[in-house]
């Protein structure tokens, strides 16, 4: 398991999901950097390379690597957010995984069969991600700033140098960040670290394994003994 310190010194050693394992994103630009300040930049990110590096650095500061427990970085929590921002690049959009099983404990893997959205769900998720954009069907509650703009503004406010800052300096900067943005960022960092891997984070289950959590259990479940005597494993 990489610790935060070893990561910052050798980020390129991290196994980053290949774009080919996801749906096709925008082609990698020839001048797109492989990393910025040690933060690997995926070729198909929805964010600019600079913003992605700031995002990864911020999530790392919120949920750092520690000895024996992967954090947001090794879980690729930033990828989770990136997948959400690009949810509508695929059809069906990658909002709701399928069911009923992941296939990891038996049964068919249904999680990777994404569910279609209802009409109002599509309005809702486009509103959340893209914003109301002056469209009447989205402005029933007034103008709404989408997640794309929320992150653009929030990451820009942290500043380009944030990605190069030390862990302590990044934590200090987050303390002074806009609380509304910080709440959104923190929520996504947590989701990306501990959510099901199908959503793009928690790669290799590092988030779950790091906190000794079993994750999804269907169709296996727990035995009577596992319920009543969890101390025995």
């Amino acid at each position, binding site marked *: 398991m990489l610790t935060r310190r070893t990561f910052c010194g050798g980020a390129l050693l991290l196994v980053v999901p290949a774009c080919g394992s996801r749906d096709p994103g925008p082609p990698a630009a020839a001048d797109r950097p492989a990393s910025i300040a040690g933060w690997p930049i995926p070729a198909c990110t929805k964010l600019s390379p600079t913003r992605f590096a700031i995002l990864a650095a911020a999530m790392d500061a919120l*949920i750092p690597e*520690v000895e024996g427990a992967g954090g947001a970085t090794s879980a690729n929590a930033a990828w989770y957010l990136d997948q959400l921002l690009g949810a509508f690049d695929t059809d069906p959009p990658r909002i709701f995984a399928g*069911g009923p*099983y992941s296939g990891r404990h038996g049964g068919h893997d249904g999680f990777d069969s994404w569910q279609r959205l209802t009409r109002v769900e599509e309005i809702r998720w486009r509103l959340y991600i893209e914003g109301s954009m002056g469209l009447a069907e989205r402005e*029933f509650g007034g103008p709404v700033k989408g997640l794309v703009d929320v992150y653009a503004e929030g990451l820009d406010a942290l500043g380009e140098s944030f990605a190069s800052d030390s862990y302590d300096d990044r934590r200090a900067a987050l303390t002074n960040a806009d609380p509304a943005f*910080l709440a959104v960022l923190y929520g996504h960092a*947590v989701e990306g670290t501990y959510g099901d891997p199908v959503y793009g984070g928690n790669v290799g289950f590092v988030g779950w394994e790091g906190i000794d959590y079993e994750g999804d259990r*269907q169709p296996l479940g*727990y035995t009577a003994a596992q319920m009543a005597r969890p101390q025995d494993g």
Partner: protein
Amino acid sequence: MADFDAVIIGAGAGGGVMARELCAAGWKVALIEKGRNPFPNLGATTLRGSLLGNDEIRRRRYYAFHDPLIEPRTFRASDDDAALRAEFQGLGVGVGGGTVQYDGDSPRVQRADLALLSTYGAVDGASVVDWPITYEDLEPAYDAVERLIGVQGLAGADPFEEPRGAYPMPPGYPSKAGLTLSAGAASLGLHPFMMPMAINSMTYGGRPACVNCGFCNMGCPINAKGSTAVTVVREALRSGNLTLLSECCVTSVDTTESGEAATGVTYVDGTGSVCTLTATQVILAANAIETPRLLLASATAAHPAGLGNGSDLVGRYLMFHMVFSSVGVFDSEIRSYRGRVITHALADYTVPDGSSDWVRGGYVELGGSIHPIDEGVAYPWQLHRSYMLDGKWRRRIASVTMIGEDVPVSTNRVELDPDTRDVYGRPVARVTYGRHAHDQSVIDRYMPRLKDIADASGAVETMEMDFLQYDGVPNSRHLHGTTRMGNDPATSVCDAWGRLHEVSNVWIADGGLFPTSTSFNPTLTQQALAWRTARHILGSR
């Protein structure tokens, strides 16, 4: 000639039961549900799986749940306050409604719950009343519904339970949290027992036994939970008499010009088209916030204040229960997320303790669980890493939670918000809810007793938690009142059968009917009331 014999609005706890009963009698019924259908083969010969999963992300993204972006709500604590948008009291939205994600807790009420005024007396500033029906009226409905949805439990284990026959299924496996807290409660002379639950402990109704995956609140992937979707709605579909219209949002109940009767409903379908259908009977089962919202939005010249609201009581006497907890932290592994959310309960505090007034507590749940995303966002980010590695909330807590009865107050109400609209362009629900002094007395008196149970169970520390969120907004997910039933049209919205006093063929089949909130989880009682209303509708045609 109407399109349907009946149209039911809302495919949740009450609407599902209603659909089953009417369809079984040969009625042609339209069941309209604004949410999605997560059960793609619900009407097939063999029910297989679902689109639900052990997936916290899906839950956080409001899958088949009330979504505050699609349908915002506003809240204020009193008429003097400004109403602010808030996320609160969300229930399942989709086929099965709240029964898809609920714990499955299915206790019956006690006789005194239906006769609060005559048993314990009035409370100043509250409208404490007797229900217009008795426990004996409900008992056959309880028996029927428990069989229809499948309830596990052990008759006689709860010494405060009304006499009853055997449950359809025996109790399932106990959790460590339930066992630990039960031992502590018993050491105090209390009487814990295994919670009656609408979850299969054995193969029942063609559905499998629960495997105790622990994700009840995200919906049961294998259909071991007796949601109304996989039980009664499925039965209704199998009868061939049900037309299930999911992803359709009813925008008004339509009436004759005189307003004496309903003719059907207008709704927006899944493509966004505005549609109408006609029906001989109209049944609202959308929940105690959404049903009054729809009645108020259905105002006409004959019903200028809203359908059935000549008394100005539609939306009033909103009750949520005070769901408050002493959360015990233990040295040893508890891992409450393994297995059903709750496996044990006790009812000792549903009876007044002989103090100078009649303040009483309520049903007590022993257990509770949390998964890591909800846990993680609850911790301050500065302490996240150490807290998550320790996993106190996830691994070492067990909660003692009381379902406290809040008294009905006329100013606690649902109205239409004058400023905020939902995705359909409808005014959203504005909720006003303030805590009565009686309710605070219940919390003050019983919170220490909940802590006593946690302490006696070996907790090394406890955290006392009110049901009000950080911003003062109540979030119990138990919705009652707002269309209360009674015999007097001046003091109630519906009659003793759930029919609007002012409209001859409009019925309510949700928690809105409750004149008082009782001291028990409400779902089974809502379902029993719906069953009873259905039988009355069938008998009176």
